């Protein structure tokens, strides 16, 4: 690696691509979030271009860049790749330097990562081959109701009660929503039920003991998810600062710690 004192992380996720720049003191300098689209390589490049230009930097100023996410192997300008599990764990340990359980609710998968007090992973789990309970699940089902994703949190908070969803299949949930609408249920209560169904998918993956921290874009836009998860678990749940950027931020941190990075 070469360049200046700035480190980059790029998270090419299934739904969105995130770029992050940090300084040597691990402070966030700039970031960018955009839809991933169909070309991982060009989206990653555009996202990093935007992050760099927002703080007047160029690629030559970067001492190191790590890529993560589904498209991590398609980022030509990255010096190395790390999995999303490694990056979310690293970012979470940065903000919560103790034994924690990280729950990342991503665009296409959920991850649960147990990390020890030193930030090392003790175990991790990903959801099965099923998108139910992930970001894309919410995207799909809210389309059916003509509810913008950005309105979900607000609507769910208006709910007088939660409409419980019985299905854990995205397609069947769409059908179930129709049945609830026909039965007279209102949109806020159904939206609350959809977020609750994400919580149900998470808690069936792991007992989630100890301190729980949630990361990822879904909770960044729908903090009510963490509140519902906390109610379900019976103990508080924290949200990672800049939760949607966690993967990219973790990648940047790992880049800054890489032994080959210049100082």
């Amino acid at each position, binding site marked *: 690696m070469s360049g200046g004192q700035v480190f980059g992380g790029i998270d090419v996720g299934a739904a969105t691509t995130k770029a992050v720049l940090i300084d040597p003191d691990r402070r966030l300098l700039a970031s960018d979030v955009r839809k991933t689209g169909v070309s991982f390589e060009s989206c990653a490049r555009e996202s990093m271009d935007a992050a760099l230009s927002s703080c007047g930097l160029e690629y030559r100023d970067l001492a190191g860049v790590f890529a993560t996410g*589904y498209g991590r192997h398609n980022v030509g300008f990255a010096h190395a790749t*790390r*999995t*999303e*599990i*490694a990056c979310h764990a690293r970012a979470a340990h940065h903000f919560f330097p103790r034994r924690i359980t990280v729950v990342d609710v991503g665009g296409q*998968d959920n991850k649960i990562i147990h990390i020890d007090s030193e930030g*090392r*992973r*003790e*175990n*991790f*789990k*990903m959801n*099965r*081959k099923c998108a139910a309970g992930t970001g894309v699940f919410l995207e799909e089902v809210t389309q059916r109701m003509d509810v913008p994703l950005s309105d979900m949190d607000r609507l769910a908070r208006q709910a007088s009660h939660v409409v419980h969803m019985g299905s854990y299949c995205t397609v069947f949930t769409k059908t179930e929503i129709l049945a609830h609408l026909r039965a007279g249920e209102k949109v806020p209560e159904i939206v609350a039920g959809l977020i609750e169904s994400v919580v149900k998918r998470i808690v069936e993956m792991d007992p989630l003991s100890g301190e729980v921290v949630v990361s990822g874009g879904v909770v960044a836009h729908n903090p009510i998810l963490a509140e519902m998860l906390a109610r379900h678990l019976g103990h508080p749940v924290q949200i990672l600062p800049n939760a949607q950027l966690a993967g990219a931020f973790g990648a940047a941190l790992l880049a800054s710690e890489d032994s080959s990075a210049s100082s």
Partner: protein
Amino acid sequence: MKEIMEGHFRELDQAAKTKSHKVAWCTSVGPAELLKGMGFQVFFPENHGAMLGATRMATDLIPVANAIGYSPDICSYLTSDVGAYLKGVSPISTAYPGLSGPPRPDVLVYNTNQCRDVHDWFNFYGREFNVPVIGVQTHRGVGDVTKAHVDSISSQIRGLVPKLEEISGKKLDMDEFKRVVGLSRQCTDLWKEVLQIASNVPSPLTFFDGTIQMGPAVILRGEQRAVDYYKLLLAELKKRVQDGVAAVDGEKFRIYWEGMPIWGKLRELSTQFADLNACVLASTYCSSWVFPALEPDDPFDSMARAYIELLIVRDEDYKERYFEKQVELYRIDGMIFHDAKTCPNNSNNRYGLPERLTKTYKMPMLTIHGDLNDLRCYSEEQARTNIEAYIEQLAEKKSR
């Protein structure tokens, strides 16, 4: 290998066409020694199922069986094989020009030690070919193997003889039967030695090699050519150990694979693990054709014992103890459980076993969701990320 496998399929084809021998279809851990000892040519549909998976024909054929009422949730060996039959296609005809596919059976002989699906699978062909379907119903959830278990299976195997004599038109020759059991025992001992050579560091053999090399142990056991093949293979592997030849260059991580192979993804998985300096070197699956109980002088009882000592029919406590021994024997860093969607009996992650082993060994475990043949149940990208993250985690653990 190619030569002896081809020989096997050509002999089967000849037998069916010329009626020189009766043809029996047999489940993979069915009473093959008895059948061979009685002069049958033996065909193994599960082997055909694996070929359909490895050639990636299976995923397109499974829906053909689904359409006639065989659920996508049952054994995908069954559904892909039935689909192949209905479509009139077979990887045998591609691999061995001149052969059209599986030979027509005169009898179908099952053992439910693998699962109940094999019985239903054979019943399908029994109806299609109008031939007898006979077999052995094996106990499940077996803890200690008792005399009652052995007596039950042994009497069922003995009970097959009159029908087989009727079909073959020959009386059982006990000397020939014992000779075949003796050869099967030699084969199994050699195969066990082949597998256990992977306990060397670095391992000269991977699980992926094993899934190919196991062919003779499955379909040619009880025959001299299987014994000869494994003697040759063993000598080569011993030479590799002597020369320090590793199956995976720069082996850093030693992994145990628990569960069925993902037949259509063997190459991709093998390459990914090798790129990560991880050697998947041992498995329960390849060890499923190790039968130390076989004794030529006591063929019925020893076959019964051999076929009920299998891991697949044992209870969770036995399985836990078994895996603990494997971890120690092969000096394992990590274990990957393959949860095969359509094969519950070979998916040992479903009752908390990985979690219990993690507690015992302080070793992280990984579960991959997929299937033996139905690639619709497998998310390649998700599996790749899981594997990569798992190796990252093992690297972190080693660096402590």
